[in-house]
């Protein structure tokens, strides 16, 4: 059900832009209006989401005990898994962001022949996830070639490394293949594993299918159904210099690619893809485990009117002394009995 819905959604999007360009000739709409709207929705949406999330206080430390907590001096602390200082927290965050540390812990749980439980290493998800993210990142950086007059210094070495196989012309990029393989794996995994399929929603299938279609259309524009790159660059440059022109004669496959990327951008902040921003705000990743070192005060504590024992005694001291009750502070000298004063 989820797959069919997501597939229908992606097909509908492709058809919409195909008909829009081919039948209605809406090149300006799909080439200029949609990308601008999408980038606005993306930036605005991400800022909105982050601010909205950060309006909720997270006053207390959520310690995840993946490593030895800081304890007695002769017990070795696991500084990256159970950080105490800011620096260590940054270290854990870097591991999480660049190497997906939490996902690396992934295990597979299995029951086999009666009451035997097995936990197995399961690294394929981590591997495919990591490959997908890095391939996508490199592909994004490579696209800077369309958006800058002169290439920024880091793009050319990256391109050369990416295309070092020098297969065919235009040269095959390794990341193009990795991207497709990784996304396909992530998609098939959801279908083949029964539990994954049971818990997968359209919101899980849709981004994968969208990414896959973006990848396929992108590869088609480069290797198969070619488009005139110079015109594409002219369009891209006109967009980033706020002087939009849509040159005549760009193939429809490019508009499909551009439209799907726009959809992805606009969809991003309001979907699970927002984990890109969310990872920095996850309390189990960004909080040092210092609940026994620092006093954490609940920010929504309201001022409670309290009557301390000292104040209580001030109130009732005379009566307490009269009744023979012990007091912490004696009555002032002139009011005390002679015996008490002598002592």
């Amino acid at each position: 059900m989820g797959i069919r819905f997501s597939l229908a959604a992606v097909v509908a999007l492709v058809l919409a832009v195909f008909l829009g360009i081919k039948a209605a000739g809406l090149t300006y709409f799909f080439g200029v209006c949609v990308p601008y709207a999408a980038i606005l929705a993306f930036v605005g949406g991400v800022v909105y989401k982050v601010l909205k999330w950060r309006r909720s206080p997270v006053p207390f430390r959520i310690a995840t005990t993946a490593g030895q907590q800081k304890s007695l001096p002769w017990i070795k602390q696991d500084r990256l898994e159970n950080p105490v200082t800011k620096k260590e927290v940054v270290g854990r965050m870097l591991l999480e962001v660049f190497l997906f540390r939490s996902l690396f812990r992934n295990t597979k749980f299995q029951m086999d022949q009666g009451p035997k439980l097995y936990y197995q290493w399961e690294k394929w998800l981590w591997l495919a996830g990591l490959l997908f993210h890095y391939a996508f990142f490199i592909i994004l950086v490579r696209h800077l070639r369309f958006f800058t007059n002169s290439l920024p210094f880091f793009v050319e070495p990256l391109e050369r490394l990416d295309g070092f196989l020098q297969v065919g012309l235009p040269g095959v990029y390794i990341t193009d293949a990795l991207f497709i393989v990784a996304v396909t794996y992530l998609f098939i995994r959801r279908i083949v594993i029964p539990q994954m399929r049971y818990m997968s929603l359209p919101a899980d299938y849709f981004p994968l299918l969208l990414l896959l279609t973006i990848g396929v259309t992108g590869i088609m524009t480069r290797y198969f159904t070619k488009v005139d790159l110079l015109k594409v660059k002219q369009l891209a440059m006109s967009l980033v210099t706020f002087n939009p022109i849509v040159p005549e004669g760009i193939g429809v496959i490019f508009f499909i690619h551009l439209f799907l990327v726009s959809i992805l951008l606009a969809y991003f902040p309001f979907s699970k893809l927002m984990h890109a921003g969310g990872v920095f705000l996850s309390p189990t990743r960004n909080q040092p485990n210092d609940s026994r070192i620092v006093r954490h005060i609940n920010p929504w504590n309201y001022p409670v009117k309290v009557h301390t024992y000292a104040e209580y005694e001030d109130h009732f001291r005379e009566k307490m002394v009269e009744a023979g009750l012990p007091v912490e502070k004696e009555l002032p000298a002139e009011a005390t009995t002679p015996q008490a004063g002598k002592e």
Partner: protein
Amino acid sequence: MKIYDGKYILIGLLVFVGVITFPIWFNLGKAAPPPEPKLDTPVIMQMAQKQCVLPREEMRTGHMQILNDWRTQVVRNGKRMYVAADGKTYEMSLQNECMRCHSNKTQFCDQCHTYAGLKLDSTPYCWTCHVPPKETK
């Protein structure tokens, strides 16, 4: 409405917006003019019918594939002649055939390649082996 850890959130969001708007501030709002390769070399000017091995649009998007195929045909299969769709035969040679007409490499090749952000010496790697024709300026 309070934003908790406002300082870090602000820094993070500024970095995010800075990275996303990279193409805008990197170009300083100026787009390089799209290239207009000149086809007025002496050889082309003398041609009665100005035509390449394939129609212009196909050459624009597919010239690199043709060059690559030609390279394979000549170097690996030993075939040197190419029969175009209109029956004309061409010698499959970048230096002797392509550059005979398009003798203006800086105009004809480099202009577009630079605009598209290719590194002239390495991508495409034609001129790591071939010698470009001498140009009189």
